C-alpha cells in the first residue's frame, strides 16, 4: 500500500475495492479456520492464478512476500519444535496466503479507492464516526511509513558520520525530535490544503 500500486486494467484491478476487501476477509478467515491440506493447496493455487490474472510480474509479487519469509524463518522451527512438521507447514502456508492476498489487494487498488470504500463502510455510523477523518488517519499512517524510514536512514547516516554508531541516544533523540517536527509540518500542510477541522 506504501506506493506499491501496480497499475493495470485487469479484472482484478477493475473489481471494486469493497468487493476485494470482502473477498480478502472471507478467504483469510476461512484459511485461518480450515486447516486441511487440500483447502490450503486449492487456495494457494487460487492466489497464484489471481496474481497471473492481475498481470503482476513475478519479481514484484515476490518483493511483497519475501519479508514474511524472515518471520517464518524464526516461527517455523519453533512450531516444528512444539507442534510438529504438519502444524508448522499449515501455519506457514496460512501466513503466506494471507500476506500474498493482502499484497495483491494493495498492488491492484489505489489508496484513494480504499478510502472511498471505507467511507461507504462507515456511512451507517456517520452520526458517531467522521469517515473523512478516519480516511485521513489511514492515509497519514500509510504516508508516515516511508517518511519515517527516510528519517531513520538519514539519522543513522549522520550518527555514522559522527562516529557514534553504537549510541542508542544518538539515534533516538534526533529521530524523535525530527519525527515531531515532521508531524507539525505535515499538520500545517494539511491545514493549508483545507483539512483544518
Amino acid at each position, binding site marked *: 500500500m*506504501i506506493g*506499491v500500486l501496480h497499475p493495470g486494467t485487469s479484472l482484478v484491478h477493475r473489481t471494486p475495492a469493497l468487493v476485494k476487501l470482502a473477498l480478502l476477509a472471507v478467504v483469510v478467515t476461512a484459511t485461518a479456520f480450515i486447516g486441511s491440506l487440500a483447502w490450503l493447496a486449492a487456495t494457494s493455487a487460487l492466489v497464484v492464478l489471481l496474481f497471473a490474472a492481475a498481470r503482476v510480474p513475478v519479481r514484484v509479487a515476490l518483493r511483497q512476500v519475501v519479508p514474511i519469509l524472515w518471520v517464518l524463518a524464526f516461527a517455523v522451527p519453533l512450531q516444528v519444535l512444539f507442534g510438529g512438521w504438519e502444524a508448522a507447514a499449515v501455519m506457514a502456508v496460512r501466513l503466506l496466503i494471507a500476506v500474498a492476498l493482502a499484497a495483491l489487494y494493495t498492488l491492484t487498488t489505489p489508496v484513494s479507492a480504499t478510502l472511498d470504500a471505507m467511507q461507504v463502510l462507515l456511512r451507517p455510523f456517520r452520526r458517531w464516526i467522521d469517515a473523512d477523518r478516519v480516511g485521513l488517519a489511514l492515509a497519514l499512517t500509510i504516508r508516515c511509513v516511508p517518511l519515517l524510514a527516510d528519517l531513520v536512514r538519514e539519522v543513522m547516516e549522520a550518527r555514522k558520520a559522527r562516529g557514534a554508531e553504537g549510541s542508542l541516544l544518538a539515534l533516538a533523540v534526533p529521530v524523535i525530535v525530527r519525527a515531531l517536527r515532521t508531524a507539525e509540518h505535515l499538520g500545517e500542510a494539511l*491545514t493549508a490544503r483545507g483539512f483544518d477541522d
Partner: protein
Amino acid sequence: MSAAGTAMGEIVFEGVSHDFGDERVLEDVSLVLRERRVGIVGANGSGKSTLARMINGLVTPTVGRVVVDGLDVSRRGREVRRRVGFVFTNADNQIVMPTVREDVAFTLRRHRLEKADAAARVDAVLERFGLTDLADRPAHRLSGGQKQLLAIAAVLVAEPAIVVADEPTTLLDARNARRIAATFEALDERLIVVSHHLELLEDFDRVIVMEGGRVVADDVPGIALEAYRALIA
C-alpha cells in the same frame, strides 16, 4: 469595499505583530498588496515566513489583523484557505498520498466534486505541470524538483486565486530551482513568493524586504533587492 473595510483583490496587513512565546517575530507591519506578483526577502529569522503564513491563516496575528479579499483570516480562515494555496519549502511535508495522481486528487476530497469533474481537474493539472507520465509513480520516490512540481500541482488543482510559496527553491539544485522558477513565471494566479533566490524575484511587480520582524524596504525589485543586498553585505 467589503464588510471588513478592504477591497476585493487586496491583501491587507493592519498593524500586525506576532509573538512566538516571548519572542516578537513581527513588529507592527502594515501593508496593502494589490500587485500580481510580490516577492518577500529577508535573512533567516526576519519574519518573512511568518508574514507569508498569515496570508493563508496558518499563523494568526497576536496584534492587528490580516484581511484577504475582504475576509479576516483570524475569523474566516477556512474561506481564506479556499482562495489562498500554500506551497511549502519541503515538498515532502506536503505529500500525503502514495502516488502522484492520488496526492493531487487528495486536495479535492473536501471540495465535494463529482468524481468525473475531480478526475478531469486532476488530469488537467498533471498535464499542465508535465506530471502525466509520473501519475501512478510513488510520490515519495520522485526527485526534489518533481516533488516540488507535485506540491504546486496539488495546490493549484483547487484553483486558488492566490498562491503563496515559502522558499520553494531552497532545497533544490540550480537546475530544478530554475525549473520551478519557470513554472512560477508561467502561472496566471496571483503569486507571493518568499525566497532567498533573488533572481527569482527580479521580474516581480514588488519586493518587500524584512529585517528583525519589520519591513525595511518595499519597492520595485530593482530598488528593493539592491537595498537587501546592501543590508546583507
